[in-house]
């Protein structure tokens, strides 16, 4: 089954969101935007800390991701 997915449209939409979010941060006091951001960041850090992942598996995974990214960059340059 082929999924109808417009990658470019999704990318434009995400960039528009980033711009809107940045505009909100710019007009919001530091204490407020940073506290809201901390709710997200701290929960991600907590989840990661509880993840049962060994250093060896993590390093292997990172090496594979880096290799794939370099391959993609070389193809597009």
């Amino acid at each position, binding site marked *: 089954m082929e999924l109808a997915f417009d990658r470019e449209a999704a*990318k434009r939409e*995400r*960039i528009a969101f*980033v*711009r809107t*979010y*940045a*505009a909100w*941060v*710019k*007009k*919001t*006091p*530091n*204490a407020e*935007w*940073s*506290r809201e*951001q*901390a709710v*997200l*960041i*701290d929960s*991600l*850090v*907590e989840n*990661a*800390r509880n*993840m049962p*992942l*060994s*250093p*060896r598996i*993590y*390093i292997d995974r*990172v090496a594979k991701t880096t290799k794939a*990214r370099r391959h993609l*960059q070389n193809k*597009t340059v």
Partner: protein
Amino acid sequence: MELQYSDREIGVSEKYLTQLDRFVLGFTRILEQRTAYVIVSGYVAILFGRSRGTEDVDILIPHLERETFSQLHRDLTEKGYEFLNAENAEGLYDMLCRGMGIRIAEKDRVIPNIELKFLKDETDLCVLRDRTAVKMPGAVLYISPLDIQIAYKLWLGSDKDIEDAVYLWEIFKDNLDHTVMKSRMDEFGVSGEDYGIGV
């Protein structure tokens, strides 16, 4: 966002420090006892409010002598950090000398971690030389100059990197020197026009 922006210094008063910020600060306080450093890549955007997480924080340092690295290795180990790569201090040093990154996390954790590398080229040297101090309540971190950071992110080119570049541009476009920004973009051979980065 209230910023006190000047050449090579950005003040962010009343910023609430996240667990990620505290992790980075804990590490850099030990690191800076032995060497200068500069933070590059994704964490820079997160530091200024970008709403995303990251597994790792990239930090560049100048080439260290083997003995200095051994001392740093000892400092970090004694203060509760762990090297994720399987090598001992000698092996880790050799990795750094070969241009590879080594990863360091709090003991018994994997994420978040620091990816530490030696400077490898002229751009890296420039990033360290012109590093920007970010002053937060009770803390200072040194980051890559924002014009280089934005151009570099565009050059990397993944969706996440482009979004980071757009975010930093939107936050700092009124502070950045557009002529310098343009020359950075030219150096990296990138254009931000498609993403509204208009210099």
